[in-house]
């Protein structure tokens, strides 16, 4: 019901914009989807961690930034720099770099869980929550010391080629890469979670931890796997963010994390498809607001996103695709 209302309001506000200058509108939609794809990759980790240990992992946005930061020295180490012709070798090296970043990022997150959250597993829920905020500060602090307080230029390695669409609208190779990467990762995740032994064990742990233990599932392992996969996705998101926007900063994850969290709540926290759709939705809303399509204009684009968060929490806490989770 309320979702219908949100979509209706958006439709009413957006239709005239689309009618007056459709190519521009289309362009904004493309940006929104590319942005949203990155939010989706972050939101998946939020929603998975929440699903399995009911922790809102406030440090997750910084894990995303960490992915972007770690890829930069790797890019130099692999001898990639701006202005090279982007042949197959560059693509392959970027793929290798991304995979390395994903794995290291996953490892870091597993370590964080082990050190910071696992000892608090039986503590009141507020304790791990506050710890997550602390971990967020620590990660941002490390990246601040590492690369300073201002924007850091991220090497522009992808071609700026754009495919013309209608009128002035065009689809960039970068847009395609971001969107395709996100789709591939979401598909792989879905296959993994739905079809593999470990994936099923993770879902079982999320649904009923004690029952999962009675099946012989080592829940420490499934929880570690969840943190690993969440960080793998966020790490990939960090790399493609860098390649797309060519600028990163130590506190990037703060806002991106909040947006992704909003996306996860919007989609129904704990629900993977919901997080992916929620990411897209938040990306679009932000793009529309930034393009002055929504009342208030670019200056209040964040307000629009968080207003949606509040509306969802008030009227439909289970989100777009949320299941009726029995109160524990």
């Amino acid at each position, binding site marked *: 019901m309320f979702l219908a209302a949100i979509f209706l309001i958006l439709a009413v506000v957006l239709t005239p914009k689309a009618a007056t200058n459709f190519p521009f509108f289309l362009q904004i939609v493309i940006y929104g989807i590319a942005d949203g794809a990155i939010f989706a990759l972050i939101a998946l980790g939020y929603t998975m961690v929440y699903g399995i240990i009911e922790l809102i992992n406030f440090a997750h946005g910084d894990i995303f930034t960490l992915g972007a930061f770690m890829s930069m020295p790797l890019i130099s180490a692999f001898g990639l720099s701006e202005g090279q012709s982007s042949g197959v070798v560059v693509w392959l090296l970027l793929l290798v770099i991304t995979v390395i970043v994903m794995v290291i990022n996953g490892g870091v997150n597993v370590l964080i869980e082990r050190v910071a959250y696992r000892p608090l597993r039986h503590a009141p829920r507020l304790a791990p929550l506050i710890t997550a905020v602390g971990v967020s500060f620590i990660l941002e602090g490390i990246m601040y010391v590492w690369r300073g307080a201002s924007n850091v230029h991220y090497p522009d390695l992808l071609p700026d080629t754009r495919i013309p669409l209608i009128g002035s609208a065009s689809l960039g190779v970068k847009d395609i890469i971001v969107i395709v990467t996100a789709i591939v990762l979401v598909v792989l995740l879905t296959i993994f979670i739905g079809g593999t032994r470990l994936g099923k*064990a993770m879902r079982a742990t999320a*649904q009923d931890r004690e029952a999962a233990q009675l*099946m*012989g599932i080592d829940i420490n392992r499934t929880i570690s796997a969840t943190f690993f996969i969440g960080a793998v996705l966020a790490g990939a998101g960090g790399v493609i963010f860098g390649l797309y926007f060519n600028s990163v900063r130590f506190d990037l994850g703060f806002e991106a994390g909040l947006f992704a969290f909003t996306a996860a709540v919007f989609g129904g926290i704990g629900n993977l498809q919901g997080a992916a759709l929620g990411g897209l939705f938040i990306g679009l809303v932000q793009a529309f607001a930034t393009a002055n399509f929504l009342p208030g204009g670019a200056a209040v684009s964040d307000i629009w996103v968080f207003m949606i968060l509040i509306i969802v929490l008030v009227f439909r806490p289970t989100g777009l695709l949320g299941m009726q989770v029995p109160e524990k």
Partner: protein
Amino acid sequence: MALLEVETVDTYYGRVQALRGVSLTIDDGEIVTLIGSNGAGKTTTLRTISGLAHPARGHVRLRGLDIGGLAPDRVVMRGIGHAPEGRRVFARMSVRDNLFLGAYVRKDAAGIRSDEERVFGFFPRLRERRNQIAGTLSGGEQQMLAIGRALMSRPKLLLLDEPSLGLAPILVDTIFQVIKEINSQGTTILLIEQNAAKALQVANRGYVLETGRIVQEGSAKALLESPDVQRAYLGI
């Protein structure tokens, strides 16, 4: 050597003591029942055996090996299956995935498949609904699934916590039939029941638990004839 020995076990929930010096033994091939009123500590006894709770004092031994401090997943690997109170099926997964997870500790694909068939043999309803999401099953079907799932690890000892609770009488009979059948195929069973009369009919031996203490034990026949048991649990 006894299959399972619980020796003077104390178990706490925080500061609340739920078990006070509980001792019991189970031999290979038996059905043993644990009866007692609500809050007596029956569920806690099973949780202590399967590792969901840990004894503060005393020992739990499986064939002489102390398992009292092990995590539940380790206990399952050593051959104890537990169908917990309240069924606890994975509500958002299919019947088959639930059974698949029941066999999580095993690697023999062929054996797993034949055991799935065995479970479907006990509970044909589950075969009909094998692709259905467990949360949409009726209470009785969920109970069948919980028992079937616990069987999938091929346990030497099966712990059943009130398998007949809330079921229609005809289903209760089915469940008890299957319990006997499972036992006759070689699985030792520790059965908790509110329905003491029914439990004592299928069991070889029984223990009576009151406020965390074993107050009586004996053959099922002796307990059925005991005036105390009759008065307190059989409503005679």
